[in-house]
């Protein structure tokens, strides 16, 4: 079965967040990146910024939801390090340009 990943951009407060699906090679690469062994972080996560861009929510098939925000990957209560922000950067390459621009403006002061 062809791998499918649903990516929700956690961006809005009132309107539903934009989301997209990726398939095939891109979904497989995302699955491989998320499956890597990573350093586990302590659980005392800071509250993420309230309004504006908060990260990506990724679900592979019927699997668990991952939150990807910069160099931290969260799955349920578990947090893992991605020091080079590889997953975050890879997901950004998958975004259509208007959405990428919106993510950029969502990080404004």
């Amino acid at each position, binding site marked *: 079965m062809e791998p499918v990943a649903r990516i929700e951009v956690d961006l809005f*407060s009132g309107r539903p967040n934009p989301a997209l699906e990726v398939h095939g090679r891109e979904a497989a690469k995302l699955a491989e990146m998320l499956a890597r062994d990573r350093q586990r972080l302590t659980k005392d996560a800071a509250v993420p910024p309230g*309004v504006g861009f908060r990260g990506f929510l990724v679900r592979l098939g019927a699997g668990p939801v991952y939150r990807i925000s910069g160099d931290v990957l969260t799955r349920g209560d578990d947090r893992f390090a991605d020091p080079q*922000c590889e997953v975050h950067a890879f997901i950004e390459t998958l975004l259509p340009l208007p959405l990428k621009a919106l993510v950029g403006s969502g*990080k*404004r*002061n």
Partner: protein
Amino acid sequence: MTTVVTLDVFSGRSNPVAHLTEAQENELNARLTSLKGFTHKRPSGVLGGLGYRGFTISRHNPAFASSGHIRIHESIVDRGVEHPNLIDDTGLESFLLPLFHPHLPQGVIEHAMAKLTAADTFSAMGSKLPCPKCAAADAPAYAPATWNNPAVQPHNNCYNYANDHATNTFAQPGRAHGATAVVMDCAHVEPAAVRDGLLKVANFSRPLGSGQGWYVGLVIWPGADYHWYRQDQTGCWSHKPGSTAARDIDNSGHSIADPATCDRGPYTVFCCYMVTNRKVVIA
């Protein structure tokens, strides 16, 4: 790994540069990986200006064919527009400045030291501002546990929270009355909320008796989205950003005395205060 630190301080001359030893790299990495707090604020050094503008750090890791560039200034680790920034509570700038002591005139070091001491840092994170008086008898209690649970939190947004009504529909202004706002600006979202029964008011100081509702505030991220705050019994304001947890702090971690002046990230336009009540119908 090669790590080059630049003290961004000069205007005419080239900025001084230091190459870190392995031990210094390890210390820097340990401090950076220990940072847990995020912020969307950016240090003023990214905009330029004269004098001390922080440190830039360029790193190249041949093993991963990767490189990175960050700026550390005003207790913020700025990772560029692609990533949320980090709050530095480990004194990174004080750690980096001595690397340049042997190579710079004392006056330059003293200038940077003075800026470090006077910097407006994030030490105020989580600080409590005094709450204004709550003039609404019906104002909800701040009880985030009611909202921050798996059955409610993902299905209710800022509009649900402001109206203190969990419909589990991610309610949209105007939808219960036939038309939602199609353009994300005050001129479209305000009337949509009025159709639901909200009432625009000039401020949040007029006393509202029992049955007359409570105050909410509407803000806009131009062209993209809207957001609502509500005033609780405490007098301070709280909000629920999208499907995330309800909270009583703004994007800088401060309590919210007035949604017109708090840190609202990209929701830069404050539209108005409004009054909602238990008879308002949302969907």
